[in-house]
């Protein structure tokens, strides 16, 4: 029995069908991979504190960089900060270059592991931004308004 067909056009067809199968195969693979991760890209600090995140296992944590917690080392690229979802905070340690958007109050997604002290040692820190777009003056005006509101409360 021949496995490879004789005719050129049939050979071409077989090749294409194999290519198609490979394509469908990889996409199904990606889907299962994504489903394995439970479709969620990251855990919130509350979930991490409550122990819902995997232990001794790499995972991602997402939240806001808590204002006033960013400490950079003078001698190395070490950065220390807290990630918060306003309810709970998780301390993160990262060594490396941070994305341009990284700043206090900004959304971040960090990948890494929890160590025994409950500190999240990150191997990668990504910045997550919101979906609003406006000129810097408008952004500043909103910030000022929020500050004013906060100071009036006090």
């Amino acid at each position, binding site marked *: 029995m021949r496995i490879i067909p004789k005719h050129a*056009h049939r050979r071409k*067809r077989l090749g*294409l*069908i194999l*290519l*198609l199968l490979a*394509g*469908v195969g*990889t*996409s199904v693979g*990606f*889907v299962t*991979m*994504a489903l394995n*991760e439970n*479709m*969620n*890209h*990251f*855990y*919130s600090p509350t979930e991490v504190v409550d122990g819902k995140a995997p232990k001794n296992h790499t995972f991602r944590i*997402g939240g806001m960089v808590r204002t006033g917690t960013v400490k950079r080392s003078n001698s190395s690229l070490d950065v220390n900060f807290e990630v918060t979802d306003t309810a709970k905070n998780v301390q993160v340690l990262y060594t490396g270059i*941070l*994305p*341009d*958007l*990284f700043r206090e109050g900004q959304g971040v*997604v960090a990948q890494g592991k929890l160590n025994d002290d409950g500190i999240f040692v990150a191997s*990668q*820190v*990504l*910045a*997550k*931004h*919101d*979906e*609003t*777009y*406006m*000129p*810097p003056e*408008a*952004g*500043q005006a909103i910030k000022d308004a929020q500050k004013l509101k906060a100071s009036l409360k006090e």
Partner: protein
Amino acid sequence: MWLWFHKLGSPKYFYTLAGKLIPWFGWITLLLVLAGLYGGLILAPTDYQQGESYRIIYIHVPAAWMSLFIYIVMAICGAIGLIWKMKMADIIASSSAPIGAAFTFLALVTGSLWGKPMWGTWWTWDARLTSELILLFLYLGFMGLQSAIVDRRTAANACAVLALVGVVNIPIIHYSVEWWNTLHQGSTVMRMDKPAMDTRMLIPLLLMWLSSQFYYGTVLMMRARNEVLDRERDTGWVKELAMEGK
């Protein structure tokens, strides 16, 4: 209306009509692109958090919208082709696939070029990015299936089924940013509230989207005309056309 629908189903009528419309669509596309580029690259202000990098949006978002829209068109054509055996539906579906694949590719590549400076990575396996990549595979699968099956009717039926099955991915792509935690941000324009974008930034975006629609129309008609020529090569009117030399 019904009569017009039937007429459009006639290959010769379609060929002539599309031939007249293509230049119009082409010029409208060009005008809209120029207006959109001028508005987006020159008039629109810089962004408060992303600086100048956000200008990639004028390519990225229209391309992503078109990648979804064209797939829906293909699925609808697939259904029409399966149910009513309309040849034009098959032609529109198969002519749309390469254009949709091109838009999907652009959405992914420009997203990557945007993600690197803003997020800090070219790629990440979040639900939005992964589902858009699957869309690219669906387009490529459609095109592969089309060329793998020699018999036209079988090919059209198989592709129609693939398009209809794959359409479940479309709502997944759109709602992925709401259903799951993703690195990708939520929708700026397609949401319940008013768009979360300054008007001077939004208008060029809508112009670029409109130009993409006309671009799709232009290329779709060009491709469909070729398909019609190829299928009808043994008929009198195509022979006449070929003998004219033009």
